[in-house]
């Protein structure tokens, strides 16, 4: 960077497009040990000094958000003759459909049509991994809310009135709700996966100490604010255009085509933005999309569906509840010598993404710890709930919660500070760095992060204070815990790790970018705009992100696995570099001709002063002679140079063998740690989060404002999961907590009073787009510090018993555990925990009507 007075000028030399013009997907796949050599070119590093990347640019849609001008699906203007669509969902968790008066309903005032599976022209089966789900129930229903029929009408009121005339006859069958019940009934999804390393049996039999127990966690509702929605229009010759609130437009396109018997090229799916998704719109946006597409196909009229929050929560899948039986062998110092985890997830009625989610659980069941001997068995149970699905962390949080619980119990058993156990077992650098699946954890800062956080948070001093407080206070308990986090980045399904982008430059020098990535609030579009602006050394304002459409970007993966920016950002940059190559070639001839020199592309510079509209291009042998970017583009156009290109990117080097369960599934890891302190009311179990300190290695941030939002937002979302978000069902499998009145996500009063969020510089991280790291999912798992802090608090009640604690640690759960500890030695009273010892909460209501009680 050179300074001219006050004016800062950034120059990116053209060498970046000649000598070092290595597109990342062109790189030879390096040997494992050469991984650290996989770095961007020096020119690319020079680009880091340019203006836009690394700055806190406002969110791409921020002004639209605050004015209400940013439109979501149900905000789009109604077109004339548009139909409103709703569905008839199953009232029972398991049953056989005997009869539905669909023909009668179709004749009612304002009703245009009622459609069942028999009306689907293509096939009625789908599933992202295993095709086992039906768009509309056929013969049997397998969960409450499962769509049986679609109802299309002229108005919401017409549909509301028609639903009163619904006559649905169903023969109830015996449902299965819990993991235990599913195991008894032998109802599973897929097969049991097994990760193995060393010899667990030997470690167990030779262990100095052992512990065993069961970890139980409930699910979590995504609670995106914009419920599932889709709007479809008829096109020519049976084509369908659909605007879907979906993380996965390509899947929407394909699934609609299959349901309607169309070619993929006859369906276009677009998504401008989602009002939150968090994984809940990765696969499950499909059902509403197919509903409106079918109505369009049947009626040739536009059709719209927008679920109510109640409908959405009742009928869509959630984070998987888990039950994990653990055995751990360890030394007197607390070094883990072996573990065996029998992991069961509650998958719900369909496979959805459960197999991939279980796989990620297996990949994260050791979290940040080296375990020489281990067995992880992962089994998915089929039950009569809506198919559980993706949710930020994707199975990782449950696996990590389990190992953190195990470590805490080792500490309680050994009467040691749990931090000591965590630090002792933490992955190291040159040894003790092999994961259960054989990948080596490289270039990480896990021990350094822990050590720094211990210092900055005053952990040791505070631990003493907390334990003193607990000995003195009759009314309250405090707990303190530090938990680390290591999260693997890449889809563990290899083929999904690809992305493509389309970049068009117009004659006025402005740029449009389209990728397959979808914007759900995470700031993907903002980051891509920044990346593209820097590629041409132009201003952020001259770059515009266009609607995501399968018409422009084909065969794209879902925007998920935190990899949105990695995949689509790289693809966009690759497209830019192709155009830049064209422009540089043209510019070198242009400037050379003026001075009678030889054209030298390596001397062409793109420069942006002040990040304003001051971008120019010149030959550095003659820097006085410049063209504005706009002039260059215009001249290049006149010279018939292509100003639009597609870029492609596929993540290099990743590989995993599911037969051996070994390989290198992740391109890199995002890591961090958190310290949290909680205060518990001994009488009510009420929990207050008093302080949290977070420290993460997210590489070099493309946009610090957005990344801070991801970290804080992810953490608080996780805090909801481990504390107050409590899904409760009736005994018949109806969700009782189906709206924010009863399902309590964190609100603004639930923030820790002291909240420190920081990032650490990792000089070893030299890969990935502008040396950034994925930041979407990882911060969520720092929430485990809060849950473990509760466990720590409970462990201070008495020193002869290890407290039990299920997840979430609601006030009720905490008070029951406190009472259990207080009454431990008293024989005259036993507490009935039966309702809480399952991974799903089934409430025995006093009367048959769940509804009236839910609204007391």
């Amino acid at each position, binding site marked *: 960077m050179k300074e001219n007075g006050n004016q800062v000028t950034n120059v990116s030399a053209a060498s970046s497009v000649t000598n070092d013009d290595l597109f990342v997907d062109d790189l030879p796949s390096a040997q494992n040990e050469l991984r650290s050599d996989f770095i961007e070119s020096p020119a690319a590093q020079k680009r880091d000094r340019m203006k836009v990347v690394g700055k806190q640019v*406002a969110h791409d849609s*921020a002004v*639209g*958000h*605050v*004015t*209400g001008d*940013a439109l*979501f699906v149900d*905000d789009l203007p109604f077109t004339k003759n548009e139909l409103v669509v709703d569905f008839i969902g199953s009232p029972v968790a398991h049953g056989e459909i005997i009869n539905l008066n669909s023909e009668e309903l179709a004749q*009612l*005032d304002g009703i245009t049509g009622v459609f069942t599976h028999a009306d689907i022209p293509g096939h009625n089966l789908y599933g992202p991994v295993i095709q086992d789900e039906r768009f509309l129930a056929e013969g049997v229903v397998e969960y409450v809310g499962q769509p049986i029929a679609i109802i299309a009408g002229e108005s919401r*009121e*017409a549909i*509301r*009135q*028609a639903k009163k005339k619904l006559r649905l006859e169903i023969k109830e069958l015996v449902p299965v709700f819990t993991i235990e019940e599913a195991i008894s009934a032998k109802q599973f999804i897929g097969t049991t996966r097994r990760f193995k390393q060393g010899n667990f049996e030997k470690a167990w039999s030779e262990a100095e100490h052992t512990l065993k127990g069961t970890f139980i966690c409930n699910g979590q509702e995504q609670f*995106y*604010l*914009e*419920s599932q929605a889709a709007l479809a229009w008829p096109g020519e010759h049976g084509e369908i255009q659909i605007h879907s609130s979906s993380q996965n437009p390509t899947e929407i396109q394909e699934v609609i085509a299959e349901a309607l018997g169309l070619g993929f090229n006859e369906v276009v799916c677009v998504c401008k*933005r989602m*009002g939150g998704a*968090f994984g809940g719109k990765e696969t499950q946006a499909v059902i509403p999309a197919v509903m409106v597409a079918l109505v369009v196909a049947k009626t040739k009229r536009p059709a719209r569906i927008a679920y*109510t*929050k*109640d409908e959405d929560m009742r009928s869509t899948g959630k984070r998987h509840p888990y039950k994990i039986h653990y055995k751990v062998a360890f030394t007197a110092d607390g070094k883990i010598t072996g573990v065996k985890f029998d992991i069961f997830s509650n998958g719900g009625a369909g496979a959805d993404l459960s197999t991939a989610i279980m796989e990620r659980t297996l990949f994260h069941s050791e979290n940040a710890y080296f375990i020489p001997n281990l067995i992880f068995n992962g089994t998915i149970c089929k039950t009569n709930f809506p198919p559980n699905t993706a949710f930020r962390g994707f199975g990782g949080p449950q696996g990590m919660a389990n190992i953190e619980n195990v470590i805490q119990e080792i500490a309680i058993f050994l009467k040691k500070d749990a931090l000591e156990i965590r630090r002792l077992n933490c992955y190291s650098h040159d040894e003790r760095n092999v994961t259960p699946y054989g990948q080596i954890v490289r270039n990480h800062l896990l021990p350094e992060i822990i050590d720094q956080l211990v210092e900055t948070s005053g952990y040791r001093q505070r631990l003493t204070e907390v334990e003193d407080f607990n000995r003195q206070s*009759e*009314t309250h308990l405090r707990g303190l815990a530090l938990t680390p986090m290591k999260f693997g980045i890449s889809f563990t399904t290899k083929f999904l790790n690809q992305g493509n982008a389309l970049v068009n430059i117009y004659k006025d020098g402005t740029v449009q970018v389209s990728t397959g990535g979808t914007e759900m*609030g*995470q700031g993907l579009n903002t980051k891509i705009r920044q990346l593209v602006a820097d590629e041409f050394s132009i201003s952020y304002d001259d770059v515009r992100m266009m609607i995501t459409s399968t018409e422009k970007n084909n065969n794209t993966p879902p925007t998920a696995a935190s990899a949105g920016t990695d995949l689509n950002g790289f693809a966009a940059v690759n497209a830019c570099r192709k155009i830049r190559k064209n422009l540089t070639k043209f510019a070198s001839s242009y400037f050379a001709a003026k001075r009678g020199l030889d054209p030298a592309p390596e001397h062409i510079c793109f420069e942006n002063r002040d990040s304003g509209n001051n971008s120019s291009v010149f030959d550095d042998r003659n820097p006085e002679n410049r063209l504005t970017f706009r002039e260059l583009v215009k001249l290049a156009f006149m010279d018939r140079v292509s100003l639009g290109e597609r870029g492609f990117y596929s993540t290099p080097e990743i590989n995993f063998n599911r037969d051996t369960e070994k390989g290198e599934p992740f391109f890199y890891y995002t890591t961090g740690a958190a310290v949290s302190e909680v205060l518990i*009311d001994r*009488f*009510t179990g*009420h929990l*207050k989060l008093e302080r949290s300190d977070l420290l993460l290695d997210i590489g070099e941030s493309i946009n610090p404002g*957005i990344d801070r*939002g991801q970290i*804080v*937002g*992810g*953490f*608080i979302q996780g805090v909801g999961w481990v504390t107050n978000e*409590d899904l*409760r069902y009736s005994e018949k499998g109806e969700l009782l*907590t189906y709206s*924010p009145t009863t399902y*309590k996500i*964190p*609100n*603004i009063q*639930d*923030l820790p009073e002291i909240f420190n*969020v920081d990032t650490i510089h990792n000089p070893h991280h030299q890969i990935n787009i502008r040396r950034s790291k994925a930041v979407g999912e990882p911060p969520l798992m720092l929430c485990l510090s809060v849950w473990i802090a509760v466990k720590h608090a409970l462990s201070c009640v008495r020193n002869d018993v290890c407290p039990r604690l299920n997840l979430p640690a609601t*006030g*009720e759960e905490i*008070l029951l555990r406190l009472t259990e500890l207080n009454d431990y030695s008293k024989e005259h009273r036993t507490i009935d925990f039966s*309702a809480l010892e399952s991974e799903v909460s089934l409430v025995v209501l*006093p009367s048959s009507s769940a509804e009236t009680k*839910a609204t007391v």
Partner: protein
Amino acid sequence: MRDYLLIYVNGRRYKISGKRGFQSLSDFLRYDLGMVGTKVVCAEGDCGSCTVLIGRVRNSQLLYEGIDSCIQYLYQLDCSHVITVEGLKDEAQIIHPVQKAMVDAAGSQCGYCTPGFVMALAAMLETGETLTRHSVQDGLTGNLCRCTGYEQIIDAGLSLNQKVIPKASKCYDAKAILADFMEHVVQPVYCEYEKKWNGAGQQVQFFVPAYLEEALEFKQKNKHVTVVAGGTDISVQMNKERLEPNCIMSLTHLTGLEILEIENKTVTVGAKVTWTELGEFCQEHLPELDEIISIFASRQIKNAATLAGNIANASPIADSLPFLHVIDAEMELTASHGTRWVNINRFYHGYKNTEMKPDELITRIRWNLPEPETVLKLYKVSKRKDLDISTFTAGILLRLKKGKIQNARLAFGGVGPVVLRLPKTEEFLQGKPMLPGIFHEAGKLARDEISPISDVRASSDYRLQLAENILLKFFHECSDNQNKKEAA
């Protein structure tokens, strides 16, 4: 008598046929006016995405407050000026400083909750309160965001300098609007029409009386009428199709029910007094109740809901009831033939079954302030501390003399079909010293006097344990206070 509603939206006057009165404000904005900046998520007043400013006539002025537009129906909003997120830009289409602050602080991610947060912040500027971290959190308690974790939204709030930022309402000609309203509020609104679907017709009517006499007369004639003050529960029931009232009377324009006074240690609260008003009053006179008011609902709800509504709704977990029971509050029930005062301890006969006759309205509530030698504590246990429906509530009022309990009153909510007084436990405590063992034993007794159920919020076991523990908690808080006093 009018058959139309008069509502201003962003300064523009709308005469709305009474037939459109049975829809929520948010539906009207989104589907009739195409103002889709106002979002609806929960349709039950729990997320705040639909927050708008409402200017209503109070003391001959337009007073602007934030409310949840999804649970305000148009029939409640006659003579209101609604300001939506679309109405925040100034004439030059420059965004309002509140909006700018949210942009600069990266306060939005997906953007769906954002208009609601913007409007809730704008509402804080209307009242001119000082913006601290604490007050911004209070002002935004009614707004849920799933993306941001709120920190950057708080940053946005704290960056505002309310001394220099214009109130959103200042963009509009308040004088002209007020004059129009003053002319109209004295005219009652009545609308009656037939809804027809699939061959069946249903007669629907609503009435917005201008005077109490009209209201009582209407109630006398239409005994099944649903009376709505803030409507924060009824509108939820209507949105969720659990209730489809075909005859509604809104108290919006009634005068004389806004009384809020303290005279000779007797507090009197009119039926139209909102929780916001009562909360401000209690800050000075009844800090214990203020504490409950501050957590039990959001600003948006408290700006609409009333104490009288909380009582009339007859929920066993209504947050005001344990207090009213231990303080021996009385309600004035008014019918066209006269009034009577009824003690709250004799008001509830069973679940949602009250002493109120079909022709009666609650017009006032009164109670005597606790005497100096008494200790009053109120408890609310809920899953989330703020803006959550109670799992368990308790009111405990002890009169102490020389370290002994002269008299005890206990009222627990969420442990039966109505809020329960605990006569056996009260009797046990009488004459006993303030010792932990006494309260431990009292807790055991309390368990036996209640019959909680398991429901969506908690198991009966949890509620029993809370009932037992709350007495010990009370004891410890009292001795803490005592220790603090002695230390001082």
